[in-house]
């Protein structure tokens, strides 16, 4: 099948989306690797292609589709865990002194994680947007603490082995053929008899489908150099606007609060951008700000929103400067402000900045689509509802659970439509990528 690929290099995650000739999404991939951009693009792209192939297979599986899908990705992650084990062994053994003692201890920890793979890498975990490195890292951390205490090992050293190995492991190209992983997944689910035969047949058919990339557009925020041919790059603002509109066709205003920048985009009924404003000179009011807050309060990022929602009386916060975030919180708590009130105030402050940007871009029109990492924060969403209603009147506000793919989707659509920015060559000529 002929596919068009869109890739979005964000500040923390890289996304890939594949669309078919009817502009339906057939596969998606995402990674939060910290390796270079070329590797990030490669990983995301491969995952999207695998995802597409997997989708081909499971459509025929009826009731088993969900469990086989989950098992497939668990199996893929297990392969990556194996790679991690291998690399950890090497890293530990190569350490002078303590090395030999560490190697088996680390291996035991990883073996435990392998046993827990079913729950750690479940569909639910993927649905929450958890990445391999974060899942494994958190679990390794906890298990390592236990193990170090028990075995009298230096916790920092144990962790050090992991830290050394994980970067290589998460970037590994898992070379196992699709069908092998698929069959292992079917086995993992425990299908038998005719159900198993049918499943394996579907897997074979999917493995044989030719996934041909005939178009490619890459996007990503203002880096001096994106790892794409110049003619395949589109502005992330246009991609974002088009993508949001494709997901939610009545979108006319898009607010994207990412890790370190915020965008307010107005689109017309075709999804074309008519105006935009960006706040990209400092991370104030963006996702990173919430990261600092979480650190400051020793909370998980995902705990901030729910806690903030418990507030009945938000504290008044005027600055969203990350440099002063810590001081401001400490000051407030020291005069007796409750944690949830401070958090609620902080969320309101972020949204206030976003509201200013929206105002500068032209206002808030029906419907407003809210995207970016911060859109997963329920307190931020609540504050946005409140403030939009207060300043613009009733508006429909959308938060799409797949909004992290907005930019990549827009890029894929641009690739499909082959719309020439005046210096883009005809999309059919792009042979820059191979599956």
């Amino acid at each position, binding site marked *: 099948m002929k596919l068009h690929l869109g890739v979005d290099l964000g500040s923390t995650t890289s996304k890939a989306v594949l669309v078919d000739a009817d502009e339906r999404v057939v596969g998606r991939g995402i990674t939060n690797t910290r390796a270079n951009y070329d590797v990030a693009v490669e990983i995301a792209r491969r995952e999207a292609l695998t995802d597409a192939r997997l989708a081909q297979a499971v459509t025929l599986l009826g009731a088993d589709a969900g469990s086989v899908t989950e098992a497939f990705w668990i199996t893929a992650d297990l392969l990556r865990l194996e790679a991690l084990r291998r690399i950890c062994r090497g890293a530990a053994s190569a350490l002078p002194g303590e090395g030999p003692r560490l190697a088996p201890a680390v291996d035991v920890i990883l073996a435990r994680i392998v046993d827990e793979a079913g729950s750690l890498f479940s569909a639910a975990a993927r649905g929450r947007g958890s990445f391999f490195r974060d899942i494994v890292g958190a679990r390794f951390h906890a298990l390592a603490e236990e193990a170090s205490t028990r075995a009298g090992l230096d916790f920092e050293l144990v962790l050090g082995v992991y830290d050394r190995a994980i970067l290589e492991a998460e970037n590994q190209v898992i070379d196992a053929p699709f069908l092998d992983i698929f069959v292992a997944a079917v086995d993992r689910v425990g299908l038998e008899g005719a159900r198993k035969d049918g499943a394996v047949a579907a897997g074979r058919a999917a493995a044989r489908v030719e996934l041909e990339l005939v178009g490619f557009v890459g996007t990503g925020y203002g880096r001096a150099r994106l790892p794409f041919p110049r003619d395949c790059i589109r502005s992330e603002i246009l991609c974002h606007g088009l993508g949001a509109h494709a997901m939610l066709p009545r979108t006319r205003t898009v607010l994207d609060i990412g890790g370190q920048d915020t965008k307010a985009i107005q689109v017309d009924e075709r999804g074309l951008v008519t105006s935009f404003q960006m706040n990209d000179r400092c991370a104030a009011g963006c996702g990173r700000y919430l990261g600092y807050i979480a650190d400051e309060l020793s909370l998980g990022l995902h705990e901030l929103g729910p806690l903030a929602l418990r507030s009945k009386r938000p504290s008044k916060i*005027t600055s969203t400067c990350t440099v002063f975030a810590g001081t*401001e919180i400490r*000051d407030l708590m020291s005069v007796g402000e409750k944690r949830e009130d401070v958090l609620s105030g902080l969320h309101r402050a972020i949204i206030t900045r976003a*509201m200013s940007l929206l*105002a*500068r871009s032209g*206002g808030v029109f029906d419907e407003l689509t809210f995207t970016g990492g911060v859109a997963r924060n329920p307190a931020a969403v609540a504050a946005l509802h409140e403030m939009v209603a207060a*300043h613009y009147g009733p508006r429909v506000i959308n938060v799409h659970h797949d909004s992290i793919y907005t930019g990549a989707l827009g890029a894929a659509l641009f690739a499909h439509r082959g719309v020439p920015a005046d210096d883009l060559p005809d999309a059919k000529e792009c042979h820059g990528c191979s599956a």
Partner: protein
Amino acid sequence: MTSPMTTPAAPAQTVDELVEELEARFDDLDLGRIRAWKAAAPGRIAVGCLPVFAPREVIWAAGALPVFVRGGGDRIETIRGDAFYQSYICHLPRSTLELGLLGHLDALDGLIFPNTCDVVRNLSGVWQGTFPQHFVRFIDPPQSAEPASAAAYLHHELTAMYRDLCARTGREPAPDHLVRAIGEYGEAMRAATELSDARRARPWDLPIDEVYLLRRAADQLPPLEWAALCRAYLAAAYRRGNKPEDRVRVCLVGAFCEQPPRPLLRAAEKAGCYVVDDDLTVGVEPGGPAPDLAVDGDPMAAIVHAWLRATRPSAVRFDEHASAGRALVARVHACGADGVLFAAPSFCDPALLDQPRLTRVLDAEGIPYTAFKYAENTGQFQAIREQAGTFADSVKLWGTA
């Protein structure tokens, strides 16, 4: 000289009652009291004035009430007003636009913009495009050092404004109204002088926050009413008999346009200062000799010459004789201040570009000072408290900052 004015006597109230009323007026963002004033007689209009200077006598003589608009402070959330300005510009125009967009300035019939700085200047153009219900006038008070040309120009501009406003109120643009207006504002100026004298003499009985509210009331009250209110407050405040505290006396400089939030003023005093002098509400205070009809005969000429003879330097007025520094030193001595607090709004070119010139002179005279920036909607005062407190302490201990 005009005959003594009859100031309507205000009923004897306690300080708390007076302050409560002042606070209610301050928080009356929708200008309900202005509406009431307009409704009380036919032909009355209200004219908004942006800081810093406004020709109040001329406006009042035409039968219009001058209403200073000094932004929304920390009392409103500014969102749509922010749409007109990117970063690196002060907050005043944003909240002023927000007030307008929220309908809080609907009681005004028009606005007058003086050439305070490029931001206020440009705001006049933004306002024209955005609020067709308001008439907008721009006035460029002369900066010229050359008195004859300046006088001629200002006379012309004020006369044109007077005629224009009279056409709107239906009043004859006669000199008599100007004469009466001069007299009434003269009375208000005298009351204002009594107030600042009292503040300097007994700051422990007149907290800065209360005095500030009273002076903000001058932004929108007819002059004689305000004079009466001011005297009532003074009488009530004197009855307090508070004990003087060991605080450092300071002049507050630089906060003449975008206003600091009230908690900031309170924080500065709480940290160990008495603010015995400031330029917060320049424009409704005597900046020099009052119009003198005995000298000038023609009331408009008197108003013009009072402007030209204004003695109080301002960051938004050309310092013709390079005397701003010396004048500040003189002020410090005149009010027995121990030092100076420079408080400028972020991005305020006039205030911030003045500071190094002024601090140089203070350094030469050995007068201690400290400086900080604020925005009208600042919410955190810890840093200012600390800074003002440290300043007060070091002045007390060592006589220096």
